[in-house]
Structures are given as C-alpha cells and as structure tokens.
C-alpha cells in the first residue's frame, strides 16, 4: 500500500505530487479543476484512478505531463526530483509518460520517423537503423499491430483500438519510470483490451510505476492495481484496493458524494 507520509524524494518513491492544484482559463478568469491532490506511488506499484465523468481525471493526467493549457500549483516529483517547472519534453526525457485518451494524428509524419526521433531523444543517442528496425518489429509483434503501420502516418486514420495499441507500444519502447494511462481501455474490444493490458503489464516492473485512469473494472482485472483511488470533484475522496472497484461497480459514485463534500469543506 502506498504511504502518503513517505517523503516524495524517498528512494522507494517513483512518483509523487503534493497539494496539486490545476487551473484552467475560463474567459478572463481561472477555474480550479484539481483541488489539492496528494499522491505517492512507490516503485513497482500500479495505481488506478476512477471517478465520474467531468471529475477532472484527464485534466489531472494532462497537467502532470505539463500541458500548456493548464496552470499548476504544488509539487510534482519524479524519481526524487521536482519536475513541475520542466517542459513536457524534459519531463518525458526523465521518464514520465502519458498515454492519451485521444492520441493526436500527425499527418505526413510516419510512425517510423516519429518513433526513431522520440527514442533518440529519450535515450540521448541516435539508434542505428538496423537495431531500430529490429526493436520496432518486435514491439509491433508484441502489440499485435500489423507491421504496415510502421510506414503509415502517425495516428492518421487509425481506429480507436489501433491508436491505443500504438500508445502502449510507445510505452514499451520508451521504458518510462512512471506512466499516466488516461482511459487507455476506452473504445477497445475484448481482444484489444487483452493485448493492451498485457502490454501494460510487460512494461511494468519493480522499478517503475503507473497511474491508470479508467471507468471500468474490466481492465483492472487484467492489470491488477495495488492501489485504487476515487477522484470526485477535483479531490481524491477514497483510497483502497480492488474491493473499492467492486463497491463502485455495485453502488456507483453517489454514496461517496458525502465524502467529496467533506473533502471540499476541509479544503475551503
């Protein structure tokens, strides 16, 4: 189990945030979306984040990656270092990864050229063509993606399932120390869900961690999180294990609304 009292720069902690608040522009004003989140993920841990639509889960994930639309207050720690002042590419090079809920298409840029540039940036060295090709072929086989996608334009005309598989393929290649997986299971059929889940498990190890944002129990049966958080109205209102997932499947989120209100009150 995660320990919120553990110092964020403790060697066993791979990722942490403290009193994270995320603001988004709302006309001339700012709107507070994430209202003070504390999270500690130890090496080897998988965390799940569940919550109703509109609770701010995707905002939280994008803001942790450094999306320019958001203003962030609070600390973000990756492998014992503050990363909240870093640009997105600097966070990524240090090992932070975001699997997008809606991966963006970049027409005219082939998957191969993109991945080669991305891997070279992550590893700090160009990768010889032959070695790269072999690595790519293996990863495509692992994720059951047709090798013809290597020469297609990035996410351009890909189905929802193909996009999500390519996200996890990137996770496998980039070997991040901490991954934010934003509804990676949405829009997947049963077979694709299995492949994506296996990819996530393959990319997980004793040294890294992940936060899986989802609405559904299905992927959690495959990925088996160590810790489950419920996120409502910008707060983490409950933290537990898989039993919490079952309770949510049975009872929905309403029964936690009171806790959300309490959390709101305690922050006010």
């Amino acid at each position: 189990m995660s320990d919120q009292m553990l110092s964020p720069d403790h060697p066993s902690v791979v990722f942490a945030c403290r009193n994270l608040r995320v603001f988004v522009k709302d006309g001339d004003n700012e709107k507070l979306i994430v209202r003070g989140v504390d999270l500690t993920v130890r090496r080897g841990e998988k965390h799940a984040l569940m919550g109703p639509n509109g609770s701010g889960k995707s905002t939280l994930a994008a803001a942790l990656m450094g999306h320019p639309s958001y203003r962030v207050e609070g600390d973000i720690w990756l492998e014992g270092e503050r990363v909240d002042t870093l640009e997105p590419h600097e966070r990524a090079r240090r090992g932070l990864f975001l699997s997008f809920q809606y991966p963006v298409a970049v027409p005219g840029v082939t998957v191969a050229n993109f991945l080669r540039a991305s891997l070279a940036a992550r590893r700090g060295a160009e990768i010889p063509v032959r070695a790269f090709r072999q690595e790519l072929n293996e990863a495509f086989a692992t994720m059951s993606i047709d090798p013809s996608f290597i020469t297609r334009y990035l996410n351009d005309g890909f189905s929802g399932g193909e996009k999500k598989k390519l996200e996890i393929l990137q996770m496998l290649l980039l070997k991040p120390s901490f991954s934010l997986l934003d509804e990676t299971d949405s829009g997947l059929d049963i077979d694709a869900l299995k492949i994506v889940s296996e990819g996530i498990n393959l990319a997980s190890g004793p040294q890294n961690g992940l936060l899986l944002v989802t609405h559904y129990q299905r992927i959690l049966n495959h990925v088996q999180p160590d810790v489950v958080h419920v996120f409502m109205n910008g707060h983490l209102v409950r933290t537990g294990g898989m039993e919490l997932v079952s309770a949510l499947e049975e009872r929905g989120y309403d029964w936690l609304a009171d806790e959300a209100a309490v959390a709101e009150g305690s922050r006010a």
Partner: protein
Amino acid sequence: MADVTASLIASARPALDEGLLRALAASLGEDAAAVQRRLAALARYEAADEPDRVRHLWRFTNPAALLPAAIGTAAAGGAPARAPRPGDAAAVIDLWPGMAPVLETAPGLPEGTIMLAAGADAGAQPATDLFGALNEAAWNAGATVKVAAGARLAGPIHVRVHAAGPAALPRLRVEVGAGAEASVVEQHVGGGPDVRVAGRTFVAAGAGARVRHALVQVWEAGTCGHLAVETAAAADADVLTVCGVFGGDDTKLEVEAVLAGAGARSEIIGVALVAGKQHADVHTCHRHAAAHTASRIDYKAVAGQQARSTYTGLIRIDDEAHHCEAYQENRNLLLSSRARADAIPELEIHNQEVSCSHGATIAPVDEEQLFYLESRCLDPREALGLVVGGFLENTLARLPDDARAMVESFVGPRLATIREGTA
C-alpha cells in the same frame, strides 16, 4: 488618394532611355534587331500602367518595393567565381547581370544536345505589364537554352541566376524540342541589401515533350524582386513546374502555364517557407486553351514570426477547351499568431464540359500535435519540425525523387532557421 498612390509608384519606376538601352545592348554585344526589340519594349514600358493595387493581384504587395532604383550598364563587380557543376548535372549555366551567359556541359554529352544562345527574346510575346516590359527593355542577363528534339537528358540543366548590383534583370528561355525529356533547375541566388530583381522565364515544351522546370528562390536577406514564369505545353506535352520561395525579403512570383495543345498536361507544385518579415506573394494561372488538357496545382506555404504568404490562383478554361480537368489546392500553415496568409482561388470557366475544383485552407499550427510530440521527448523545435515536415509531405511526395531531394535540400536549412526564430 488613388492619384497619390499612382504618382508614388510612377516616381519609383526606374528611368530608362534609348541611350541607356543602346549602351546596355552594346556591352552585351547585341545585334541591331535585338536593340530594336529593346526600344520597342521601352515604348511599352513607358506606356505601361502601374499595377492596380485595388485589384487582388497586387493588393498584398507594393510594386514600388520590388522595383530597382536605377538601371545601369556596367557589370556588377568583377569576374565572379563559379561554383562547380553538380555531379549529376547535364549542364550548368551561370547568368550574371551585365555578362554573357556561361555554359558548361557534362563530358561526353553529344554535341548539339544542349545549345546556348545569348538573349532570350525569340518567340516571346511582347510584354505590356510594367515588370514584363522593364525586363524586356533592359534585361542584363539572358540566355536561351535549347534541348534538341528527341533528346533524353540523363541529368538536369542547372541555371544559376545571380542577383547582384542594384538591378538584376535576368531573362531565360528554355525550349525543349518535340519528344525530348529535360529537367531544368533554375536557382535564384545571391543578392543582398537593396538588390532588386525583375526576372522572366519562358519554358516551351514541344509536342509530346516531358519537361520539369524548377524555380528556387534562395536570395540573401534584403533582396526583393518580381519573377515571372510562362510555360507553354504543346499537344501531349507534360510540364511539371516546381516553385520554391525561401529567401529574400519581398518576392512576387507569377507562374502562368498555358496548355496550348490538345492532350497537354501541366502540374505546378509550390512550397514557400517564410519567416521574419518576409513576404511571399505567389500567383499561378493555368490556362486551358485546348481540349482534353489536364492541370493540377498544389501550393503550400509556411509562415513564421511576422511573415506573410499570399496566394492567388486562377484556373481559366477557354471556350474551345472541352473535356478538361483542373484542380487547385493551396494550404497555409501559420507558425505564429503574427504570421499571416491570404488565399484567393479563382475559376474562370467558358466551357461547361469540364471538371474543375479547388480548395484552400489557412490554419495555425496545432498545439495539441506539438504537445503530443513533446510528451514523447521531442523538444519544441523538433516537434515543430516534424509537424511542418508532415504538412509539406504529401506535396513533396508528388515530386520525382531527385526533384524532391533538391527541394528538401532547401527546406531543411530554411526550416532550421525558422525554428530558431520561433522557439
């Protein structure tokens, strides 16, 4: 107000007179007929109206900024050093203001395959517009390149057109004989502060000829100019015109391609990359003068910082030109909120049995694309480079491999400097 504008341009128009033109002709060793052509053009130059800035073709560019302050007769500078002939080139021609053209052919090229003549007036329609008449009267670097009928050139003909002195007025004519295949790369190089260029290029493709003509402008900063290209495709000829605008300050490039013979095909592929305060004003016209002709235009512009791109494109189908196909596409990518693009497509169709379409877009660079790429470890400059490269990709993919490599050799470095300024 209109009168004031007209007088400002009139005062910017460089002075020409018979004595100057005779001296210019003498310095280039021209015959009496050539002098008479210059003098006839002088009369048209003096009678030419100023470009009408109320109409869209000149609304975005001030002609006064492109005109040279004065026309001289002396060669600009001493004997210039020539760059070596690129290994794959069938021939290299250097055009310097005030000097006779210099041709160097690849060893082993059969005699008579490529012929060079000074001057470029044979066959040209008399120009009545200000820039055209100026060039015709006072051109100071001219060449006619003839490729023999049926010839198949293994490599391109490189024409290096040097901008120098206060006024460079190059005039190039390329005649490709019936059934021949030729590729001509016209590179506009050199220039500097206060250098002005008024250039004209004519490309005539004989029946069944296949001609590739690339015009690439890579002037030094400070250079401004007006470049006009006219191509004429005879029956069943196939002409590809590639345009690249990368350098200089203000450029107006006008390409008029005439599909003169039945079954002729013309394609124009253009790319402009501008930044700083550069302005690229490109006009294309595909004129279908014969039946069963086909044309296609794909022009893409990328504008960074405070740069501005203007595109006006006309497809004209003449009365008799039935069963034609014409397509025009213009896409613009803005890299900064201060960059600007204008796109004005026009169709003028006089025959109903045709298929014509066009499309134009102007869009800022997609911030979500950049964030996605940056989240994959690419720094903002690398991410922007990929997005811009992707934007140009399907246009460059239409080029033959060697033409693509040539254009990319200019796109890459230009993009690097634009990214430096944008990041």
